[in-house]
């Protein structure tokens, strides 16, 4: 049977009235699971790195006492502050692991888990970022007490500015990740 061109056009136009596409659920599941595994791995590493850095620095501060000009209470205060951060990070880590158990291994569960991890990263990055402010003030005060205000302040300003910049970048990356995951979740809720 011969189809005239207008019939061909009708066949062509009819495709617009039907859904032309659907979500490839297998690819989606693999992609979200990979994303979650990567974030989980990164979260564990960053938690342990922060815990170890703070713990080791606090111990070194107490044992070596950098300024060696008698008792400098501000150094001990700084060390106690850092131990406090370690405690906070350990508690957060335990709570995170406990909370992770409530997510099942479905597409939605993995996506919620990934979103939870990304938000957790944002919270930790935010806290660590602003934590540099009181830490810097305490260290400057310790330098002032030790009579090395200018040199200590300069070192603190430079090193903490760098650390603040790095953590801010990490914070921004995680904020972006949360927004993307949230958008993905909303899209899936409307498209699936």
């Amino acid at each position, binding site marked *: 049977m011969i*189809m005239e061109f207008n019939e061909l056009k009708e066949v*062509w136009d009819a495709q617009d009235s039907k*859904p032309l596409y659907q979500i490839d659920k297998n690819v989606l599941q693999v992609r979200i699971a990979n994303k979650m595994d990567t974030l989980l791995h990164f979260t564990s590493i960053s938690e342990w790195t922060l815990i170890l850095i703070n713990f080791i620095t606090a111990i070194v501060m107490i044992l070596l006492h950098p300024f060696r000009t008698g008792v400098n209470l501000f150094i001990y205060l700084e060390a106690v502050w850092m131990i406090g951060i370690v405690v906070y990070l350990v508690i957060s880590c335990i709570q995170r692991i406990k909370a992770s158990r409530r997510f099942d291994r479905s597409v939605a569960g993995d996506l919620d888990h990934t979103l939870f991890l990304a938000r957790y990263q944002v919270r930790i990055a935010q806290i660590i970022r602003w934590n540099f402010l009181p830490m810097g003030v305490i260290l400057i005060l310790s330098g002032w007490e030790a009579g090395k205000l200018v040199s200590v302040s300069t070192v603190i300003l430079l090193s903490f500015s760098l650390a603040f910049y790095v953590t801010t970048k990490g914070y921004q990356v995680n904020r972006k990740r949360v927004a993307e995951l949230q958008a993905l979740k909303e899209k899936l809720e409307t498209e699936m």
Partner: protein
Amino acid sequence: MSEKEQREILEEWLKLHKGLLFKVVRAYTMQDHDDLFQEIILQVWHSIPRFRGESAVTTWLYRIALNTAIRWVKKGKKFSTAESLDNVQHLLQENRIAVDERLTWLYAEIYKLDKIDRSVTLLLLEGFSYKEMSAMLGISESNVGVKINRIKKQLIAKSKNYDHGI
């Protein structure tokens, strides 16, 4: 233009016009639908800051999609897709259940045409004018006319051999 604005525009365009992109993908590749679709989305993304609203969005999207598809075929499907937009649109696949057999035949016939004729056929079926086709494809209106006459005759003649589902 901020990345956020660019992303919002892309989302909006895909929401309204992704069917159009699927048509181009389907006409230009039989197997690598996902790869070409991703490449087209990437090119559309890059094109957004250049869009000044001087043409309709559909015209703009067709132009980007057809050019990308033509280059895709020319380069033997060897585009680098290292750059990737992390977007659910990439996970979309053709809904085979909804496909009409006559449409499958029509796509197969379009696929047999050369690169430019495929573009002309798609634009013709989408109802674009000779002038618009000429601007999009960079060929003269008279050339478009000649091609359209030939393609129409060709498709009608080939439909003789098609006898399913009518």
